């Protein structure tokens, strides 16, 4: 799960990093957004159930919907075979 600032919400950390880019010669890099990644295992009957559980977790705890959005990607654990 990737949690980052909503579009239109100021991202001072990204802005600070962006200001350093020209100093390093990265003139072609812009639109920086800084987020945070959460990696965890969900036991669920299928991918849709895992997705729903992760989105519920994002909504209730891991992201603050007032200022953040969460993107969830579900990958089956290899040891358990394809879901």
């Amino acid at each position: 799960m990737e949690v980052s600032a909503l579009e239109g919400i100021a991202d001072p950390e990204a802005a600070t990093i962006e200001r350093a880019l020209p100093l390093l010669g990265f003139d072609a890099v812009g639109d920086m957004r800084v987020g945070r990644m959460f990696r965890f295992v969900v036991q669920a009957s299928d991918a849709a159930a895992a997705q729903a559980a992760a989105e519920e977790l994002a909504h209730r705890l891991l992201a603050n919907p007032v200022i953040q959005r969460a993107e969830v990607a579900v990958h089956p654990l290899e040891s358990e075979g394809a879901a």
Partner: protein
Amino acid sequence: MSSSGSGGVNVAVVVFPGSNCEHDTVEALSTVDARGELVWHTQLSLEGFDAIVVPGGFAHGDYLRTGAIARFSPVMEAVRQAAASGVPVLGICNGFQVLTEARLLPGALMRNAGGRFLCETVECEVISTSSALTANTSVGQRLRLPINHFEGNYTCAPDTLETLESSGQIALRYVSNPNGSMRSIAAVANRAGNVVGLMPHPERACTALMGSTDGQVLLGSFVQAAADRAGNSGTVAAVAAAGV
């Protein structure tokens, strides 16, 4: 300035792992004739208290987001119930962050614009007197208060901002915006006015020795609101759990 008639007001000062302003808060409350009592965050009941303060610090280490985990501490259900029944609830600095995460106050506190930790004394102006914190002040009154934060940049959705403006929920603004807060907001209240949060530290401005006693104006008002409500309890118990 001590608020007459507020003697005997009992204030719960909620302590989370990582809180660090609780003792200052208890001390400051004593200067406005109130009795503060530390309450550990696992406590389930806040019965018998006339008001609640969620003090500053770094509740649960500020992990995840400021206030994000404190919101789920056991005591918060009692805070929620008290807030809904009209008990004055004040969040100072990290306490403000906790109350927004708990959705007892609208909006969120983000990293300061400019990316700097701020530790200075700022001037704030009273915008609305309809909150428990500012009821005893007058609109336009200026107060010198210390700020001490990294995440004090008040943010909310545009429609929320308009509601805050039109319903008098902006209690204080910074005279000179130090942290990028929308419309220079320093303190907001819920619609009923009994739940208030602010980033400045009134508890650190309660003796002349500390450079300002303006914090007593705010804490005195808050304690007075608690005393008034306690004196009328039963008649105002039905204060609606107004949505924030």
